[in-house]
């Protein structure tokens, strides 16, 4: 019987194959999705044409994709920094909420100041908000060895409930109570116009400040992991925590620092949501978007490579944007989600082949021996070659001895 076995590659594969594997995954995903489209009576070619057109085919489409890409790049960086160091911070979602809360709070408090004062303060406040939210799981991990996956996940729920409380269940500083409409339909206070982050326009493309920050940080993170001492020790720790200790790395300090850096990046993503796009604290939109969780996917798609992260966040941003464009009476939300899910599943699934390979195993070779009536041993079911091998080992393999 022939079966397939997944086994770890003994040697690393060439970079060109590593880059090609997700592309092959995307193609497989598109082919499978095409079958689903055909079954649901949609023309796959025209559907993919619309998706491409809306994601990357026009100036407007690209600008919308860049808007989607911005938070994904920043939360992807938060996940990447942590995962690459073997610290599993799943809490970018909550850290983003608190970053958004802090940045909008600072923007409202600094009303009347110039942008040059407000915007850096919002960035710092966002980062510190994310750090504050990462601090509890970080201390739990370092002091009590608590599982950070659970603690950060729990903190996401608390963060979501906190910002919901601030806008929907309290007369907080963040809530707009200036009109009777706002009192009846809770909404956050709009930040002053001076606190709106500027965008860089190049040849018709609009690059939000958050995206520029994300691109800059991606390069810094790449350099840090490639050339920096801290980045090197983070990689050592991720691969072998015990070896890191034997090497003299202060592992607790390292984990703590990584946690806080990751939290700061997620917090900046939250600040960017306020400064670049929403201009008010909107708990419903933030929680529905799920940028913190999507950041994990972006980081995995990039295989934890900071430059790959730019491409993967652009890809996922484009896919999300194309999904928005498709949605309508002909394309219910579920169909769009299924298409996106299949494509992403195939890409991520194919990434397994970077470190693993599939081997065809002929199990007939390992069929247990059966004793026949005359006392000799033969294999039950086997190929001819296998049969001769079994017979060889069932006799004295050393032949006559002196």
């Amino acid at each position: 019987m022939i079966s397939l076995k997944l086994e770890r590659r003994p040697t690393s594969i060439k970079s060109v194959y590593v880059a090609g594997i997700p592309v092959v995954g995307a193609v497989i995903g598109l082919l499978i999705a095409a079958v689903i489209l055909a079954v649901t009576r949609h023309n796959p070619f025209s559907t993919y044409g619309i998706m491409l057109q809306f994601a990357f085919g026009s100036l407007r489409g690209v600008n919308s994709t860049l808007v989607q890409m911005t938070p994904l790049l920043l939360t992807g960086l938060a996940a990447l920094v942590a995962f690459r160091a073997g610290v599993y911070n799943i809490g970018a979602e909550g850290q983003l909420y608190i970053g958004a809360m802090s940045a909008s709070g600072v923007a409202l408090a600094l009303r009347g100041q110039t942008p040059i004062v407000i915007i850096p303060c919002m960035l710092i406040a966002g980062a510190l908000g994310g750090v504050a939210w990462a601090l509890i799981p970080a201390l739990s991990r370092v002091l009590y060895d608590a599982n950070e996956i659970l603690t950060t996940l729990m903190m996401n729920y608390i963060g979501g409930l906190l910002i919901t409380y601030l806008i929907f269940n309290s007369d907080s500083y963040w809530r707009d109570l200036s009109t009777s409409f706002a009192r009846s339909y809770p909404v956050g206070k709009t930040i002053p116009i001076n606190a709106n982050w500027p965008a860089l326009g190049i040849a018709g493309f609009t690059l939000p400040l958050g995206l520029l920050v994300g691109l800059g940080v991606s390069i810094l993170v790449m350099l840090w992991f490639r050339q920096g001492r801290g980045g090197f020790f983070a990689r050592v720790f991720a691969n072998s925590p015990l070896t890191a200790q034997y090497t003299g790395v202060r592992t607790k300090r390292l984990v703590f620092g990584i946690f806080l850096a990751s939290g700061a990046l997620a917090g900046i993503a939250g600040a960017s949501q306020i400064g670049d796009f929403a201009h008010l604290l909107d708990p419903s939109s933030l929680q529905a978007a799920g940028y913190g969780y999507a950041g994990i996917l972006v980081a995995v798609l990039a295989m934890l490579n900071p430059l790959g992260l730019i491409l993967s966040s652009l890809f996922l941003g484009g896919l999300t944007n194309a999904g928005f464009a498709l949605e309508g009476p002909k394309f219910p939300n579920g169909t769009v989600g299924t298409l996106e899910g299949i494509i992403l599943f195939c890409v991520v699934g194919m990434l397994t082949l970077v470190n693993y390979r599939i081997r065809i195993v002929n199990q007939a070779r390992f069929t247990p021996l059966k004793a026949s009536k005359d006392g000799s041993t033969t294999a039950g079911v086997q190929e001819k070659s296998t049969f001769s091998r079994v017979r060889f080992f069932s006799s004295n393999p050393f032949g006559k001895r002196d």
Partner: protein
Amino acid sequence: MRQEKVSERDLAIAMLGGIEPVASTQVRSAPGSEEALVVKNLAVRDEHGVLRVKNVSFSVKAGSIVGVVGVAGNGQKHLTDAIYGMCSRSGEVYVGGIKLAPANPLASLKLGMAYVPEDRFSLGLVPNMTVLENLAMKKIALGMHCTGPYVNWAAYRREGTRNLETYKVEGRLNMRVGELSGGNAQKVLLAREFGLHPKVLIVASPTRGLDIAATRSVLQILDDMANTGTGILVVSEDLDEVLEIADEVHVLFRGEIVGSFTRASADPDRIGLLMGGSRS
């Protein structure tokens, strides 16, 4: 080969494909008088509070090799880990006359202590990282070839190329260490530790799992290191290996030193009995 006519040496030559094995390391320049490592009244408890090492004292002179032999499970790992600073301990450890702070491997490194743990692939090296990165690891921890947070990999690459030649490692700098054979991995580990120019090197089971050629090569490297003035502590359960290279041998049983011998007075039968727990 007929069994009655074959000697151990003939077998070794046959296993090496007709190549003569490296000569046994018997001649070494006289050890210095300076104590490279002094261990006084060392006691170590494990994470469950069980006493694993009891009141152990010995010293290693610069340029000498001291062996600690014992059957596995008699406290060897706790002993070496505690000396290096991987776990808490009571008692005192001095390197080159300076007292070491407990449970601080970086402080031990800074004072000139190097350590080759027994499990080379899960404690000594990082199999998923390259030979170059593994060679550079401890030097980067010490801030060598670093400008602030920046690591000068070009310098490490030059040094790594020299190391591969000097230690006859069959591999390339950009290979993953996990792709190397056990012998070559051990050579990489020894090259890294010796590259620190330590005052004292602790090495646990240096030849475990190695073939005969790699074993000879590793023992030769240790001998060469001792000749440059490094004090070496070899902890192993392989009595033959320790007797071959050590100037002094201590026997560890149930966490205590139950016998000490010089090379001249070492009697394998007597040491074997002590390793098994016989006090007679």
